[in-house]
């Protein structure tokens, strides 16, 4: 659909983006406020960043959050890619419906229920709650997102490529590694990125899954924010927002360049043949 772009369209887009971005922008601006009262501007200052970096509790929480995110998203990517393969390629087997149900259900079950049920499991198993249990919990819900992303890529890709590799003498594992994996790689990478962000962001499930020994950054932020506005949180938010923005823009540029390069290679291959 591409027709006249009316004043109404322009207004809705402008208002929409102002609504989406203004709150974050204000948050970032006021992180440079020298006053302790977050909503009263008293001049430019970066002192809250200094306060934040000297606050050991935030640093500890950040380290725990990063550890959890790195390990759980990697686990989730491996499990989710396997699950995607099972959904798309494994054919029929007993219990397949239950399996696909278990893949899609965590995407729609409220966090409070997932968190509660996992905590009760950890207690029933007698596991010590801490970083380990948070990782298990995050890997579980993230693997479902990964498998949705990867399976949509697996569905659209031409299976005869894989069969050709097998006919040419590849072992199934080699065929997967040298044909399938490069083709689904972008989906696997975006699945990993998605898991990583979901893990960084999660409050509810982490709170249920963790014990007193592990506090993640969202848990720390939540406990502060419940007490009201806090200039340190503004500074922390600004850092997180900048990191995410840089990450998203960089990854979209990289994937754009990769797709341009692929197109060029395909054209070259066609021209040579």
């Amino acid at each position, binding site marked *: *659909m*591409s027709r*006249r*772009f*009316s004043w*109404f*369209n*322009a207004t*809705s*887009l402008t208002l*929409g983006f102002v609504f*989406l971005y203004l*709150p*974050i922008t*204000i948050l970032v601006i*006021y992180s440079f406020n020298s006053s302790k009262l*977050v*909503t009263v501007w008293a001049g430019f200052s970066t002192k809250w960043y200094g306060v934040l970096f000297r606050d050991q509790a935030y640093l500890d929480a950040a380290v725990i959050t990063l550890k959890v995110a790195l390990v759980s998203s990697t686990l989730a990517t491996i*499990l*989710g890619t396997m*699950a995607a*393969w*099972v959904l798309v390629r494994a054919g029929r087997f007993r*219990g397949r419906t239950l*399996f696909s149900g278990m*893949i899609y*259900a*965590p995407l*729609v*079950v*409220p*966090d*409070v*229920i997932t968190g*509660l*049920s*996992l905590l*009760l*499991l950890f*207690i*029933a198993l007698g596991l010590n709650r801490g970083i380990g249990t948070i990782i*298990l919990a995050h890997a*579980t819900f993230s693997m479902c997102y990964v498998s949705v992303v990867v399976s949509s890529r697996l569905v659209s890709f031409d299976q005869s490529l894989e069969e050709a590799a097998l006919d040419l003498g590849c072992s*199934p594992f080699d065929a997967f590694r040298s044909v399938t994996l490069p083709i689904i790689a972008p989906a696997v990478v975006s699945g990993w990125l998605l898991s990583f*962000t979901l893990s960084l*962001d999660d*409050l*509810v499930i982490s*709170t249920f899954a963790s014990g007193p020994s592990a506090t993640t950054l*969202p848990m720390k*932020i*939540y406990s502060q*924010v*419940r007490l*009201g*506005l806090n200039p340190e949180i503004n500074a922390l*938010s600004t850092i997180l927002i900048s990191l*995410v*923005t840089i*990450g998203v823009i960089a990854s979209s540029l990289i994937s754009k360049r990769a797709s341009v390069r692929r197109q060029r290679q395909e054209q070259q291959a066609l021209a040579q043949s």
Partner: protein
Amino acid sequence: MNLRRLALIAVPYGWLLLLFLVPFGIVLKISLSDQALAIPPYTPTFDLAGGWAGIKSFFTGLDLENFTYLTTDNLYWKAYLSSVWIATLSTLLTLLAGYPIAYAMARARPEWRPTLMMLVILPFWTSFLIRIYAWIGILGQTGYLNQLLLWSGLISKPLVILNTPVAVYIGIIYAYLPFMVLPIYATLEKLDSDLLEAAEDLGCSRFSAFWLVTFPLSRPGVIAGCFLVFIPVVGEFVIPSLLGGSRTLMIGKVLWDEFFSNRDWPTASAVAVVLLLILIVPIILFQRHQQRQQELDA
């Protein structure tokens, strides 16, 4: 090969069984057990060593006490009703806010569209908690909105928005807008503009062409967007907890308090089971809708 296939199936299957399905079984079990027995530290008694007698006492120990308790205390059914109501109204509001944005994106020049898409998705990657926190500063008594309104002379004393349901609606629309915009945009983008020209050639006004052609064709996106907002909002915790104050009753928050403040695990489990039962209908409808769309596309 067959062994490898079996292993490939077994690993994710076993993982999900252990970490998704079994936990639900435990929730169900605890929701059916007695409060006195189940107060933490609670260890579910899957006493297989006791043999048949153990299994029998396990089942006879179960009862629906916690569920009848949910119906006797007004708090719970009020919280369920109010969650469903808040979710319904905020879904409609998000649709009203999101449709014009999706519509404008679909009408923008094709070379702008990827950028607009990224601008809609970008907030989704930023922390949910931080985005909700940002609204505390805006909506509070001395917040930026009240400062602006007082300064402009539109109001003479600050509005009370934070810690009311209004703040919760604003937070929900803000947080869930991308989930509404993207599916609607996806259907509108595929729309054939010749159809609209045909409608206008046949004497439709621009408005009736929209109402008779564009809107019905975008319905799959509208339905998907509404489900994507409604389902998670019913169980939402962060938004009512940070923006709603004590006056907003939502079931996600009740469950949280029941568990962490009252430490009443059986009641928390019963609340979770009922919440899941409420959500099963929209979840199944959504699944069917998505499947039908996929079949139509194929």
